């Protein structure tokens, strides 16, 4: 086999070494191409990972739905009627939409304009948003509770326990520095609640605050006399579900229950995280695609450069090739040698480019480790790297064919005559 023959390689090295400076400059062309390709697609992947990490605490295909005021008169109701979501809506949605994995009704005192709950512990006071929640919420938004504590559970709901989970800031403001709040009592709007957990606050998402207090939904409705009222619904669809469709379905069903005109777009509000994620994902994908296009275009340009240089080199070596032919080199041997030179140069350039690109990616990773830039673990998938190498081999062969054909098309006698 030609490729595994030591002599073949010696021939190739011999002719490559002939003009070292030129060979190196040529190789840099392809090296630059693959370098750009690796760095760009790695960086795109890094951004993608960065975004994903930032939203890791949120179910990717989740949504919110809340009620507003009608804007279209319907079924005898005039326009401007305020809508109130009810706990019964939850069961209906759960049974009617199979794509829903989790649905968590929530309600809050404070946050959206109302007065926050006033909270007292010992001599310290503060006002914080108080949320009425079901345990299922933690399936949609991962709740990070400090060791020793827990989130609201089903028992809390069933027995209307007066327990609460407090935020990091709440703990800092209401408790002494080295005081363990777990098991302690705080007074929320004049009712004593036992603290069962402290939630670790994670930036990102932007849905929660570090001072939030969560209490069981059932306790909330008794405390604030809200009956079956639900503030809004947090819904997570199954991973393979189309969350945009689920969003539409949820709204349609809610419209039917609450006698809202199907044309009324303003009566219900909703916010679809899936859509946001899709946009970000689309952005990252676009970036990956762009980097692939740019990278491959640069590689092609580099390989063409190699072809060009080999063409010049064949022209320069006309006489040498003539001598080789006179000594018994067959046209296919000459052709094979030049194609191998082309492929070899391309591969060397490619491998150096990949190595260099990886170092740069690593460098960027280290530099951005503690910054706000969403950039984590930039990698280029192995198949893409192999694909790029494959493309380079193919291109190197194709482009090598041109100088090889040129070399063979010169008759040995003409080659020898050339002085």
């Amino acid at each position, binding site marked *: 086999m030609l490729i595994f023959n030591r002599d073949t390689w010696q021939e190739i090295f011999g002719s490559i070494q002939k003009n070292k400076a030129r060979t190196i400059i040529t190789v840099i062309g392809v090296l630059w191409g693959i370098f750009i390709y690796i760095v760009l697609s790695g960086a795109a992947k890094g951004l993608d990972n960065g975004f994903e990490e930032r939203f890791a605490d949120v179910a990717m295909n989740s949504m919110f739905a809340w009620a507003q005021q009608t804007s279209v008169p319907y079924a005898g109701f005039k326009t401007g009627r305020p809508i109130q979501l009810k706990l019964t809506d939850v069961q209906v949605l759960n049974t009617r939409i199979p794509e829903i994995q989790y649905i968590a009704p929530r309600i809050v005192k404070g946050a959206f304009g109302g007065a926050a709950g006033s909270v007292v512990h010992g001599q310290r006071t503060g006002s914080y948003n108080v949320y009425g929640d079901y345990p299922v919420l933690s399936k949609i938004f991962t709740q990070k509770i400090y060791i020793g504590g827990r989130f609201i559970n089903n028992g809390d709901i069933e027995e209307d326990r007066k327990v609460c989970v407090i935020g990091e800031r709440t703990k800092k403001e209401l408790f002494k520095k080295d005081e363990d709040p777990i098991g302690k009592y705080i007074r929320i709007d004049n009712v004593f609640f036992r603290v069962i957990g402290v939630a670790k606050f994670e930036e990102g998402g932007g849905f929660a605050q570090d001072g939030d207090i969560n209490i069981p939904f059932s306790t909330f409705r008794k405390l604030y006399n809200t009956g079956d009222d639900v503030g809004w619904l947090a819904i997570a669809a199954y991973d393979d579900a189309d969350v945009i469709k689920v969003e539409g379905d949820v709204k349609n069903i809610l419209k039917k229950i609450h006698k809202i005109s199907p044309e009324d777009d303003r009566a219900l509000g909703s916010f679809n995280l899936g859509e946001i994620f899709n946009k970000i994902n689309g952005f990252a994908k676009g970036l990956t695609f762009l980097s692939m296009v740019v990278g491959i275009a640069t590689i092609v340009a580099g390989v063409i450069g190699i072809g060009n240089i080999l063409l010049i080199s064949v022209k320069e070596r006309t006489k040498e090739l003539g001598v080789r032919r006179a*000594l*018994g080199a067959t046209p296919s*041997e000459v052709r094979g040698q030049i194609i191998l030179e082309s492929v070899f140069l391309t591969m060397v350039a490619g491998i150096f480019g990949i190595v260099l690109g990886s170092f740069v990616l690593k460098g960027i990773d280290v530099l951005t480790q503690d910054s706000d830039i969403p950039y984590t673990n930039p990698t280029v998938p192995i198949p893409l790297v192999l694909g790029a190498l494959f493309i380079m081999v193919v291109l190197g062969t194709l482009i090598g064919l041109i100088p090889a054909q040129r070399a063979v098309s010169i008759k040995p006698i003409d080659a020898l005559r050339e002085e």
Partner: protein
Amino acid sequence: MIEIKDLHKSYKVGKNALHVLKGINFNIEEGELVAIMGSSGSGKSTLLNIIGMLDVADKGSYTLDGVPIKDLDETKAAKYRNKFLGFIFQSFNLINYKTALENVALPLYYQKVPRKERNEKAMKYLKDVGIDDWATHLPSELSGGQKQRVAIARAMAAESKVLLADEPTGALDSTTSYEVMQLIQEINDSGKTILVVTHENDIANMCKRIVLLKDGVIIEDKKINQVWASDHV
């Protein structure tokens, strides 16, 4: 060894055809040392190129060691050249980035001789031409005479039937020329058939037979008494 009958060759120069060989007939026996002489334009190089299978005749037949040479494609020509012929050029035509040893081993490389054997053989031929001390030197580090010796060693390395030398002393001073001719005579004495193209009388006189070409035909073909190059050195 070589039989040539009614060989014609013409080149197109612009619109005119230049009739270079106008019916060449001659035979060369094994072990001969033949000088092909003639002024420039007489067709001697063309004849050598056709014998060397670097060029193809328009008409006529050419038989080499009993093998009719015709309808050659490039691959076949390359194989025949490798098997039958060794070339010695006026400008040496060594590959300048290869050492003397590598240059000599090159035809063996194309014969697919294994590396070790190849280098051993190449070394032996370098020793035969007396420059084995220079085996690892590049052609640029050698004198003209040394280069031509390497080229001769390379032509012999293929162990071909016939050596074709195109003005082998054309680029050398007379002392070196005689040294090279002495080497050629020695090789011939060992039984190899050699064709030398030259336009120098003293070189031609060192061969055993002179074929004189003029305007594309052989005007004289005579056996001579060989002058020994060693007498001049």
